[in-house]
């Protein structure tokens, strides 16, 4: 059967099981949009308002579903607008297939209208990318793209397709999924002996600690992790992306690691004798000062990406494997143990944090609402079962500290790149993937305005996304650093914002603004009860700071409560 390259793109996507793409049309991608028009019953296309929104929405879709997200853009500015989302997906290991149009192959290298070397630009921020200039090469390129997006440690890939390749005719027979020849193994063979040695270390440990990262959720190893923690009675601390992979009401959950994480797991990282790090990469926001990070501990590092082993922290033993495989094998050999005193240490330190920070925040009585009060309320009202999509900054730290996640694939956040503007488009993608779950976008007044145009998607697609805006009229996290480390020289952090309620209304979205603590609960109830989209602006205290905090350059056990 003779079809166009553009039709081959659609057939390839369908063969990969794609039923939803996020995108924005333009000159060099016109043939593909013409083919999409023909296939709109088979592939749903969501028209974003800016290509960055397409990449990030595809990330939200992928992170909340475990499937590969797909976004489409035109050449030049369309493609370069994807870049931030691609870089975000690279750092957070999100499987993403980006398809970009390119000027006709005869024009490449001539500085043609809307020509950008997007393959060259995205080499450092993709797992793999390719330019295709012949129609017949399209199916194989897309097959490889889907393969590499998911292979080993997931990540973004980009397929740049010239306009003539999209328009050209080709013989399309059967779509073949990509099978690599002489594949470099991302998962090594492991002997039982290795897992017995690891289990021995854990069995003989007096103060063992599990650090759970993004890899646990990616490998769907949440149940195995609970079993391991329970069988070996080991406390579990989570990174930002590991947070939704262990139930926060579990008795062995000891909290969040890192700069604005919990007091106990940060301090006790420097007292543990054996640390089992699973699917995490010892990011600087987790380790603080590396020279004083867990020097006393024997570290067992499980990661599917060999390049992460010994990259930041030297491990005593390592397993290059996915979390599910590694945990199930370690589980076979661990024994139950009594670590009562060790668990008690966590409890004791948690109580200190609770008294000095958490209780103080939540029971604070004043004229203004505090961010933790709003998040705590949302957490309780949704029983920790919603998908929460924070932006970046104080709102993000507060959301993950105060939302008590009970379900996997529920915390969708930009951890590695820290992309402001992430929340709104990511929440759109998450809602598309999970129409039956409550999806709450949590943003500050800075970040919401970075991709505010995507309210148009909520309008057009009638998406019942809930938006909780924590408005302190400041770029709060930057302000906090300027207060603490730059002698209160508040350099360009003061925002004059529009009337958000009027703005949301202009997009046909129900909206409400609350300023008084007395109104908060009723307003949150109204937001959650709404069957359609709802924009709740909560005006919060202007000068709040997020604590605990490990100041940059300090060790994890130097975490401050105030």
């Amino acid at each position, binding site marked *: 059967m003779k079809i166009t390259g553009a039709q081959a793109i659609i057939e390839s996507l369908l063969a990969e099981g794609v039923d939803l793409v996020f995108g924005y049309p333009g000159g060099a991608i016109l043939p593909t949009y013409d083919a999409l028009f023909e296939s709109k019953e088979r592939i749903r296309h969501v028209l974003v308002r800016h290509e960055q929104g397409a990449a990030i929405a595809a990330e939200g879709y992928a992170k909340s579903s475990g499937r590969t997200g797909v976004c489409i853009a035109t050449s030049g500015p369309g493609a370069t607008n994807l870049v931030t989302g691609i870089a975000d997906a690279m750092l957070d290991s999100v499987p993403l297939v980006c398809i970009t149009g390119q000027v006709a192959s005869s024009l490449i290298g001539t500085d043609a209208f809307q020509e950008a070397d997007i*393959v*060259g630009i995205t*080499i*450092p921020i993709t*797992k*793999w990318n390719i*330019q295709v200039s012949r129609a017949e090469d399209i199916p194989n390129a897309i097959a490889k793209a889907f393969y*590499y997006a998911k292979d080993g440690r997931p990540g973004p890939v980009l397929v740049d397709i010239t306009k003539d390749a999209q328009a050209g005719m080709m013989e399309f027979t059967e779509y073949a999924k990509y099978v690599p020849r*002489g594949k*470099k193994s991302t998962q090594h063979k492991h002997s039982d002996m290795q897992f017995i040695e690891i289990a021995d270390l854990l069995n003989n440990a007096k103060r063992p600690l599990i650090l759970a990262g993004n890899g646990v959720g990616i490998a769907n190893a949440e149940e195995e992790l609970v079993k391991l923690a329970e069988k070996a009675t080991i406390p579990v601390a989570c990174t930002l992306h590991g947070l939704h992979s262990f139930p926060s009401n579990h008795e062995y959950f000891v909290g969040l690691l890192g700069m604005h994480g919990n007091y106990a797991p940060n301090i006790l990282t420097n007292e543990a004798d054996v640390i089992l790090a699973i699917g995490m990469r010892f990011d600087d926001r987790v380790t603080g000062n590396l020279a004083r990070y867990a020097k006393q501990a024997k570290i067992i590092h499980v990661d599917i*990406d*060999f*390049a992460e*082993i*010994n*990259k930041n922290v030297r491990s005593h033993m390592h397993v290059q494997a996915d979390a599910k495989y590694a945990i199930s094998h370690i589980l076979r050999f661990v024994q139950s143990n009594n670590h009562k005193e060790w668990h008690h240490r966590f409890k004791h330190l948690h109580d200190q944090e609770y008294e000095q920070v958490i209780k103080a925040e939540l029971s604070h009585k004043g004229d203004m609402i505090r961010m933790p009060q709003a998040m705590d309320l949302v957490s309780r009202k949704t029983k920790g079962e919603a998908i929460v999509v924070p932006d970046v900054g104080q709102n993000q730290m507060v959301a993950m500290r105060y939302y008590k996640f009970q379900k996997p694939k529920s915390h969708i956040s930009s951890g590695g790149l820290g992309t402001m503007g992430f929340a709104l488009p990511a929440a759109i993608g998450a809602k598309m993937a999970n129409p039956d779950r409550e999806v709450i976008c949590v943003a500050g007044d800075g970040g919401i305005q970075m991709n505010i145009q995507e309210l148009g998607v909520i309008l057009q697609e009638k998406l019942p996304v809930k938006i909780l805006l924590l408005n302190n009229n400041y770029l709060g996290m930057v302000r906090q650093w300027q207060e603490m480390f730059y002698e209160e020289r508040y350099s360009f952090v003061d925002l004059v914002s529009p009337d958000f309620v009027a703005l949301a209304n202009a997009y046909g979205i129900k909206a409400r603004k609350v300023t008084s603590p007395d109104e908060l609960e009723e307003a949150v109830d109204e937001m959650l009860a709404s069957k359609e989209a709802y924009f709740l602006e909560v005006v919060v205290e202007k000068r709040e700071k997020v604590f605990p905090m490990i100041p940059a350059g300090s060790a994890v056990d130097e975490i401050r409560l105030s």
Partner: protein
Amino acid sequence: MTTNNDMHIITIVTRNSLRVLQRISGLFSRYSVNIDQMSIFSGQDGLSYFSVIVYSDDHSVQKLTNQLNKIVEVCDVRIVNHKHF
């Protein structure tokens, strides 16, 4: 600049495709490992053989080669000699 660091020879075998040099050299510059000498030979087998001489510390070279290994087109990476050259 190079005197404090040991000499390493890194050999890389890749599929011979467009941009593979850009992918490889990009990683060297990202990891701040300056290339002292590089030779590339394209075989009849569709593979390219890189031999790269750098002066750097062991840890940086190891981290760099771990990343080189992740390039899809790269089939093999070896650090031929560690120091004492």
